[in-house]
């Protein structure tokens, strides 16, 4: 349940946030200062973050939208 929750949280992260969190996890595990159980949880989260980052990168929709100035015309 907790796992499901954290994974749905991950899918909401922006690429920048995901990378930031991933960096934190890699550092934590590298330093070995967290308990083993935690590091396993963090590892799983790290993998989920990497997957999420890849998904974002592979999305590649190449969208171009046009912003119309008109919708704000009353300001002018």
């Amino acid at each position, binding site marked *: 349940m907790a796992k499901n929750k954290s994974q749905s949280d991950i899918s909401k992260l922006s690429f920048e946030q995901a990378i930031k969190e991933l960096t934190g996890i890699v550092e934590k595990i590298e330093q070995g200062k967290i308990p083993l159980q935690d590091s396993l949880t963090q*590892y799983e989260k790290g993998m989920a973050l990497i997957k999420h980052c890849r998904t974002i990168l592979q999305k*590649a929709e190449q*969208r171009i939208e*046009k*912003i119309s100035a008109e919708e704000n015309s009353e300001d002018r």
Partner: protein
Amino acid sequence: MRGFVLDQGLRIDIRAVLSYNRSGSLASRCRFYSNKMQNKAKIYTVSEINLLIQSVLKSNLPAKIIVQAEISGWKQQYNSGHCYFLLKDESGILPCVMWSSNFSSLRFSPEDGMSVLATGRVDVFLKGGKYQLYVDRLEQLGVGALQLAFEQMVRKLRAEGLFDDIHKKPIPTYPERIGILTSESGAALHDIVDSIFHRWPCVDLFLYPVPVQGEGAAEQIAAAIRDINERNEKLRLDVLIVGRGGGSLEDLWAFNEEVPARAVFESKIPIISAVGHEVDTTIADLVADRRASTPTKAGVEAVPDIRDVLAALSNRQRILNNDIKRRLELAQQNLKTILASAVFRNPLLPVRNREQQLDEFVGRLVETAKELLAVTRESLHAAYEQVVKIEPHLLLAKKTVELNELRNRVIAAVVAVANSKRMQLTAQENRLAGLNPKSVLQRGYSITTAPKTGLLVRTLEDIEVGDFLITELSEENLIESRVTKK
């Protein structure tokens, strides 16, 4: 001879030229010819006359000449890169040459019909037999004013701190939504879009079309920047790219004006400028948070390369895998070490040890109790023996006899003492009775007392005639008498 007039209003007096030449080497050679052929007109070689003209020009023209004219017959030599052209006005032409070294610093492409200011020196091209302007600098006329305005604006805004690094906002590392502010029809739009998608295809781009040159373009660019900033809560743009393709200084002018510069400076969204060619620097470039030298370089400045990022991600994944693997191995090793320890090999050992210890205690306790019991029994027995030896009934009988004896002795002694004391008392009583003065009264003696003095009457002096006397007889009988004669 009449002087002639140059553009600058410079008058050259031919007489002055001649007088100069008398002192020069060429002049002396001329004299040599004139001496030799005294009666004829002077005859020069071509080189001589060209050299003469060259020296005349050199010594009489200022070293730096500025000419305002129109370009005509512009030609750049393909191999050498040197440029040959004419400067002309309504009534004449001036042949010009510009060496490629000078041409390379030009910021515009000279064309026929273009009004320019040409700076250089006039000299004779001996081989061509013509004088020409050797042009060091060429300025597009009218652009000079723009350039001045540009420099003034740079100075003003720099003094205000608009270009200071401290105001430069960082560009997000991984932008997700990028706004592009340029002309919808320009080539710059495609250059920018391609350069971004080529590196970072996972981004959403938003085009905000604005005119990028001409009247009112600067104001519209500024308004667009402000508009996007105001609406960014909804638009959520990470970066804004403001750009256009290359062109003349006039074409780029919208990006040199103060209004868009201030809008760029005030923008909360980080702005990347991508204006013109590599060599063009606009005010917008100076005030923007980052500058792309051309629209095609916008992507490099705005977004990371997806290949690098994917590689970095794979690298992270490898590191994570290695780390967790090492961590697990270590934990497993620790577990093994712990399982191999004595506690886990024979987990009941501590219990057994305690049990044994307990058994030992119990044994010792029983032994001690037994010993204690034996010792107590022994001492009890010894006490009994002693008690038996004492024979209390005999002792009691003996003590009773002794006691009776003592009592008898005490009684006898007390009786003896009482008798002795009684005899002593009687003796003393008898002696005391003999000593009583009144005892003599019974033998007929009496005692006379004078009540006046209370004293016994012993002599006559003790009494007076008329005194009452009291005389005590035996048996305490008293008689009263009065002295009648003495």
